[in-house]
């Protein structure tokens, strides 16, 4: 069994009287794609937000790569190596690929002995290198992102994450807004990330995506983990059954 890199145990979170997470256990191993499924309100997003630091859980522990990250600030958790890519991708679409990969951490150089300017060529070259690693080729790197396709933008968001050494990537509905060919590309990206040893938590409603790339499926229902199924033990029918809770007497 591979090494566990992320481990959440007994995570508890409520909003007023509503219990969003009820003693949730959740693990991710190095180099696996874990699909996180569940109906709206099942607790997927709350769990993800507890991991990424947006919410502070009231109970339980979350540890990443041996260190306790429970209740840390989002920026601290990102620095620890967990990168969350939301549906809106958090890119500046008016800037080019290099500028986006280096956003907020621009590489600078000195000209005329004392003036600090952005080193755009360097940033573009580095962006190409990291995109090559993902097997993504963007025609013109001076293009602003607004002129790229949805899949290419997704690739830029992932490229940025791994350039800054993300060691766990959380993707929230990465294929939701894309056409079919673009969806294929994003799934290929997920695989290529995994092949580089970077584990991924994939939140998705799209059953075909999940069946295609997931090594393990975790289904949530009413704030609890309803099922934790390794590869070979799930298909579309089983997953749907767990998501809607059919056959569960307590439902």
């Amino acid at each position: 069994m591979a090494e566990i890199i992320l481990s959440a145990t007994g995570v508890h979170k409520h909003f007023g009287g509503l219990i969003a997470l009820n003693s949730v256990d959740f693990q991710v191993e190095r180099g696996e794609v874990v699909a996180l499924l569940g109906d709206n309100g099942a607790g997927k997003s709350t769990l993800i937000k507890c991991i990424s630091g947006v919410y502070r859980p009231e109970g339980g522990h979350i540890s990443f790569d041996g260190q306790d990250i429970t209740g840390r600030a989002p920026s601290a958790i990102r620095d620890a190596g967990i990168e969350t890519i939301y549906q809106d991708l958090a890119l500046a679409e008016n800037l080019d690929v290099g500028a986006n990969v280096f956003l907020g951490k621009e590489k600078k150089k000195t000209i005329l002995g004392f003036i600090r300017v952005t080193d755009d060529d360097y940033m573009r070259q580095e962006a190409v290198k990291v995109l090559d690693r993902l097997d993504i080729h963007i025609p013109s790197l001076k293009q602003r992102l607004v002129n790229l396709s949805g899949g290419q933008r997704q690739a830029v968001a992932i490229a940025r994450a791994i350039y800054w050494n993300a060691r766990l990537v959380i993707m929230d509905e990465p294929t939701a807004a894309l056409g079919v060919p673009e969806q294929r590309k994003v799934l290929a990206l997920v695989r290529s990330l995994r092949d580089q040893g970077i584990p991924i938590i994939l939140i998705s409603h799209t059953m075909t995506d999940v069946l295609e790339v997931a090594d393990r499926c975790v289904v949530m229902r009413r704030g609890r983990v309803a099922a934790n199924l390794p590869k070979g033990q799930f298909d579309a029918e089983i997953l749907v059954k767990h998501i809607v809770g059919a056959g569960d007497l307590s439902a």
Partner: protein
Amino acid sequence: MATATASKSTLNTRDRLLDILAKGWAYFFLLAMVLFFSATGPGFFSVNNFSNILVTSTLVALMAIGQTYVVITSGIDLSIGWTVGLASVVSARSMRDLVNGGMDIGPAMLLGVSMALLVSLIPGIINGILIARVKVPAFIATLGMYGIVRGAAFLLTDGQQVIGNLPDGLREVLRALGNGSLLYYVPEQGFVWFARPDNLPPQVIRGVASLLPYPVIVTAVVVVVFAFILGRTQFGRHTYAIGGNPDAATRAGINVKNHLLWIYVLSAFTAGIAGVMHSFRFTAGAPQAGEAALLQSVAAVVIGGTSLFGGEGKISGAVIGAVIIGVLQTGLVILNVDSIWQFIVVGVVIIVAVLVNQAQAALERLRTTNG
């Protein structure tokens, strides 16, 4: 790489021409207007008229520089018109009072100008705090500041329209700097530096050309510095990023609140420079010095291709926009068109500018999705 070169080479000549026209239309428009007025307006085509147009355009250009930064972050600064007036009044009044109090002209000017520039930052700081920290919409915050600064400027003139009565010695120096030129061309004498020679015969005076007026030089320096900051530095990059996607900027660790504060301070600062220069040119302080120029500065920014939705724009565009407005105004005066028409013509140009910029963006999108 392959697809980009392919899509570029499939562009035919007509498309490429269209592209150049769409991107640089402001330059072509400027050129066309200069040609038109030169052909139709008697005396329009002359070195002195051109240098006059540039000097007149400096006010709007300086305001438009700061306004460009603001608009790129998808804000607007309505207060700078009166910030110009505030700086003008503070500089004129403090120089006058210091010289009347016995201070030498040089130090008094230095002190007066510094004070005016510092005071002009105050509305910018307050705008920045209101917009970045208290989350007041930029339109409302700067509209409020518009009234406050206007009142403050008139308080400093004790309600008068002008701070005049400057001591003669001071007035001479201000006039020389505000209306002088670094380089003149004098018929029969050639190029003369720094000052126009005295005692020239009248027929020669008419031929003297101001080649490098001081206000134009000062403005050019400000343009170069702020264009450089916007285009080449991290500060500029973050300005665009905030305009493009403020959430992304925040998540990338950019201190958006501080950055926005600086943007409004910067906007007030270029307005302050404009106000000080106004005092020099007219050897008086005028609270309403920038009143009419406010909307023109927004117009210049828009004509220059800066998107009011934020994230896009260039200083060079704003400067061209300011010169276009200057050429229009001067040209219409020379053609003896009633000044009321200026408003209408400038208004039409603004709307056309926005339409052209939108069409250009649509064209670009269409082309890249096809390629």
